[in-house]
């Protein structure tokens, strides 16, 4: 695990304070979306399908700070849209850092290199760069040739200037695990702090609704990717969440763990689903019918979800609040997850020609699921 001790301590003490106060439901990270406008036009993106007058709207810095104070989280992720298109993003980030919040500033990095001089390196600030695998995979996924090279330039410059940087990858059906593993090698060679990854989610508003993996297929893919790890790989995620993706742990969703706040208000019930909006964080927590969401609810909209915003909070709470979870976290930090069967599957996984449509090729490939 690559997360600095000070951050781990901050989150652990926050979780324990909530437990001691008897708070039943509390968030660990706020997904703060200051705007939906983006400078990419990724096919299938479910986050930016709005009319122009909505895309032009933005949260003010004051609205961002008020939301963070209202929910009291120790960590804030700033996704979007592309946050670097917000004219006051530096003020927003500086304000959050001044409040000692651990900020994950998500970006596709198209503007990162030329904007870096406006930011100040801090243990509280991480650039989380959207990078969906190796060059051809990423460029296909974001529908822009050359996007990978620009992002890598931004990452290298950020690392050089002393910023914390984590590449953030989403994987869809047809992903080649061998290529993902090569991507990990490339990222660690560039000098990033750790890798962040997640399976894709079928956003309700996304144009494309057909290339999302079900849970069985997610486990196969991530078992192939994450077993037999190289010691050089570091992940900026809970080891228990990665074990969940591999099928080693069963977790239920914590939909209130990563609430989303944007120009519409507090999104019900979570960052991924848009089932309405609340006017305040309190209203969100008190009026959302939580029992209707998560894998255990049977809600079809939650059926394929194994995404970090719902399941990593569960893993984090397990790791900090139970002895078995804590021990699992310690073991997971140092384990390479050796697994002969997974290695065999990895070696037998279909290889793709360089010019093939990497994100969707071989989507009918069926491999045996195993926990061996």
């Amino acid at each position, binding site marked *: 695990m690559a997360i600095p001790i000070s951050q781990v301590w901050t989150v652990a003490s926050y979780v324990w304070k909530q437990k001691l106060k008897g708070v039943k439901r509390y968030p660990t990270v706020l997904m703060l979306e200051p705007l939906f*406008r*983006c*400078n*990419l*036009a*990724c*096919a*299938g993106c479910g986050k*930016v*399908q*709005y*009319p*122009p*007058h*909505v*895309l*032009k*709207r933005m949260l003010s810095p004051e609205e961002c700070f008020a939301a963070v104070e209202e929910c009291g989280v120790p960590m804030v992720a700033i996704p979007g849209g592309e946050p670097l298109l917000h004219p006051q993003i530096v003020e927003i980030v500086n304000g959050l850092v001044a409040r000692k919040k651990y900020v994950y500033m998500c970006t596709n990095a198209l503007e990162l290199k030329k904007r870096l001089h406006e930011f100040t390196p801090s243990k509280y600030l991480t650039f989380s760069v959207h990078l969906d695998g190796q060059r051809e995979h990423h460029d*296909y996924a974001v*529908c*822009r*040739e*050359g*996007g990978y090279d620009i992002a890598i330039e931004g990452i290298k410059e950020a690392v050089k200037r002393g910023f914390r940087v984590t590449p953030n990858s989403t994987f869809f*059906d047809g992903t080649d695990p061998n290529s993902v593993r090569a991507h990990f090698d490339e990222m660690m060679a560039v000098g990033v702090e750790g890798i962040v990854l997640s399976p894709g989610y*079928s956003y*309700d*508003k*996304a*144009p*494309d*609704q*057909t*290339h*999302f*993996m*079900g*849970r*069985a*297929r997610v486990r196969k893919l991530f078992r192939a990717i994450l077993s037999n790890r190289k010691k050089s790989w570091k992940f900026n995620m809970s080891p228990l969440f990665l074990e969940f993706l591999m099928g080693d742990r069963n977790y239920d969703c914590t939909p209130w763990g990563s609430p989303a706040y944007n120009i*519409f*208000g507090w999104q019900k019930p979570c960052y991924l689903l848009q*089932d*309405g*909006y609340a006017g305040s964080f309190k209203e969100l927590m008190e009026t959302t*019918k939580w029992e*209707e969401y998560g*894998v255990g*609810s*049977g*809600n*079809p*909209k939650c*059926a*394929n979800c194994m995404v970090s915003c719902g399941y990593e909070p569960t893993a984090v709470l397990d790791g900090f609040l139970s002895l078995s979870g804590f021990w699992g976290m310690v073991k997971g930090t140092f384990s390479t997850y050796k697994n002969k069967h997974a290695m065999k599957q990895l070696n037998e996984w279909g290889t793709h020609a360089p010019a093939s*449509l990497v*994100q*969707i090729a071989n*989507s009918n490939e*069926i491999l045996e699921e195993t926990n061996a």
Partner: protein
Amino acid sequence: MSAEVLKYTREQVEALEIAPGTVHENLEGWIPELASDEDVRQALEKAFDYRGDVTLTLKSGQKIEAYIFNRIPGATLADSCVQYFTPSAPEKRKVSYADIARLEFSGKDRAAGKHWEDWVKAYNEKKAAGEKNIALVPDALE
């Protein structure tokens, strides 16, 4: 929402190979009949899911072009409302279901024609034509 809950068992969910996505209706240009309370509720639920602007005509005769981002259902139409943004006003606004006489899905569906296959087809055609730096660009904001 509640009607959809418990559609899957945990075992069924865990065994899913491919996730069934949402099937979006082609609503652009549609003018639903609002004869009954249920008609109004169903139409406004679709308007909430719609990825473009709609035009609301109120019983007062006022017309509102709006992006509906929230609906708050209540026991009666008078207790229920939609929240929306208009292109010209900065603040969130709301209107009661009971005040709405007509609904038209007048704006462009912002997700239509943006499937993965559309990108793949365009990419292959441009690549075959020898184009470089192939990319999709975001829609203009004006």
